[in-house]
């Protein structure tokens, strides 16, 4: 049986609500007169769970004649760009300590400039270099962000 997108999202939110409910109870609910730490998150999670369950029931009962729009239509999706960008995003904080701020910014910009669209190396390198210098001047020099130097000390 293929799940509809509303069913998938409702089940996910139900699980989230369950986790928050348990966590709130552990944090102590208190009483109405002296509400404890878990009182408000419990109420919020209860509402989340209730409405997700309602959503799940309604979407399961709904008989749709029309075909549901695909979440990720293959003819429209540019998977390569999406995955490369997500990879670069996760790599950024992981490489920061090792390579330091400037090298990581340069690598991130070069990677995205070169990988997501066909572009000449010279343009991609100049773009990455320009952005790195601008980021350094703006964030480190002007706004005094404390940044990692990395193993190369740059």
């Amino acid at each position: 049986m293929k799940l509809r997108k509303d069913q998938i999202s409702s089940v996910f939110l139900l699980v989230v609500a369950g986790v928050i409910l348990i966590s709130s109870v552990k944090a102590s609910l208190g009483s109405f007169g002296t509400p404890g730490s878990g009182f408000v998150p419990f109420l919020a999670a209860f509402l989340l769970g209730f409405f997700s369950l309602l959503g799940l029931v309604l979407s399961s009962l709904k008989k749709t004649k029309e075909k549901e729009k695909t979440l990720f239509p293959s003819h429209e999706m540019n998977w390569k760009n999406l995955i490369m960008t997500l990879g670069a995003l996760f790599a950024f904080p992981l490489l920061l300590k090792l390579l330091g701020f400037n090298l990581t910014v340069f690598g991130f910009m070069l990677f995205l400039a070169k990988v997501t669209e066909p572009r000449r190396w010279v343009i991609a390198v100049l773009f990455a270099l320009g952005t790195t210098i601008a980021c350094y001047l703006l964030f480190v020099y002007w706004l005094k962000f404390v940044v990692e130097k990395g193993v190369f000390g740059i």
Partner: protein
Amino acid sequence: MWDHVLLGFTVAFKPINLLYCFFGCFYGTFVGVLPGFGPTAAIALLLPLTFGMAPESAIIMLAGIYYGAMYGGSTTSILVNIPGEAASVTTTFDGYQMAKQGRAGSALSIAAIGSFIAGSLAVFGLFIVAPLLANFALQFGPPEFFSLMVLGLTIVVYISFGSVLKAVAMGSLGIALGCVGWDYVSGNTRITFGIEYLYDGIPVVPILMGLFGISEVLLNLEKTQKLEIFKEVKRIWPSLRDLRESILPILRGSGIGFLLGLVPGGGTVVSTFASYTIEKKISRHPERFGKGAIEGVAGPESANNAAAQAGFVPLLTLGIPVSPAFALVFAALLVHGIHPGPLLLAKTPSVFWGVVISMYVGNMILLILNLPLIRMWVKVLAIPYGLLFPLILIFCLVGALSDNKVGDVFVMIIFGIFGYLMKKFDYEPAPMVIAFILSPILELNLRQSLILSGGSFSIFFTKPISLGCLIAVGLLVLLSTLPKFKVMRPKLGVEA
């Protein structure tokens, strides 16, 4: 009061604040012109830059970005038929048709002039309404604040696009997420799963940058679109006939925008649809609408600007952000140790009056930026997205590092993916964000009320203001079940 106005002028005309105001307006217009990059994402991106500024300078700049984006949004709607941001959707109906008829210049100039008049009138409205509302709100205790916030959240849910169930679920999730970390009443932690990073709560800025910056980029990246742009903008100034036909829609749009801008969730998007509908309804030639009627541009463009500025009234006087963009301004104020609410006017008048006066200055700057420089903004539309999106991402990544915590970057990326999936599954981020921001205040007021009443919920029904708010909540819930209003709802929406 005149002392305060004078104080406002002193603050707004400080060279550094003029510079920030100009920068905010310029950047806001730039962002408004770019399709697929809204004012909320733009504010989120620059939020970390404001941490080192004086509070009034920070808010002056952020406000400039917001109403600047309203000006800029019209350019894309008129020339490309794609709204630069959600509040410019209605401008595409007639603005693009005018461009096709060779009247792009008239449409652009009327949009700019209308925005200027509306913005200026809204500043005047702020002058009058904000102090009155702040004085009134001084009577509020915990039950009143709690009920008012429930009303605000209900309106946001009611106005959101799509399913009410999903909007309520998102609002509830926002409240729960806002409770993560220390409970400052009991000193316990909750929903932290033993992760030390979460003890201080989930940080606001990375969440907002993720939900509005990263998710927007991911959505735009998944498909490639080619834009057809009208690059020929011949005559910039409107004719006398254009002005004559536009003046009343501009004034009506300003009024509608200001009033709806005061309502949580009302904001810029709803006001443009309301203005467009009214203009069409009272027009002697409604058949011209959708085919290049200048009133269809003048009214909504004025309305979104008036609403953009009116939203500062509930934010600064009641501490209620009416949309995610205002939630960001709210977060910026908190970072600077300023708590928006009825006491803000008395405690930090320089912030309130400085921001109000700077809005008038900002409107003048925007008129100059948007009329003589219109051809420059047309060129901005030609910037390839392939170069723009890495810049947006690096700003988000480095901005999230402002506290030098790598965990903040991960939070931002996770919420970026979450925001992307929310849009894929037809969930709106606005109810979650507003609930998340309001959560600590909502919780505090609910708990204080219950402690005061010894655990009785009747406290919310015995105070007249609180009762009034709850009756309004009940009416909205009732309205959302009526078929006629169910049909109306999907056309509206809180801007993101």
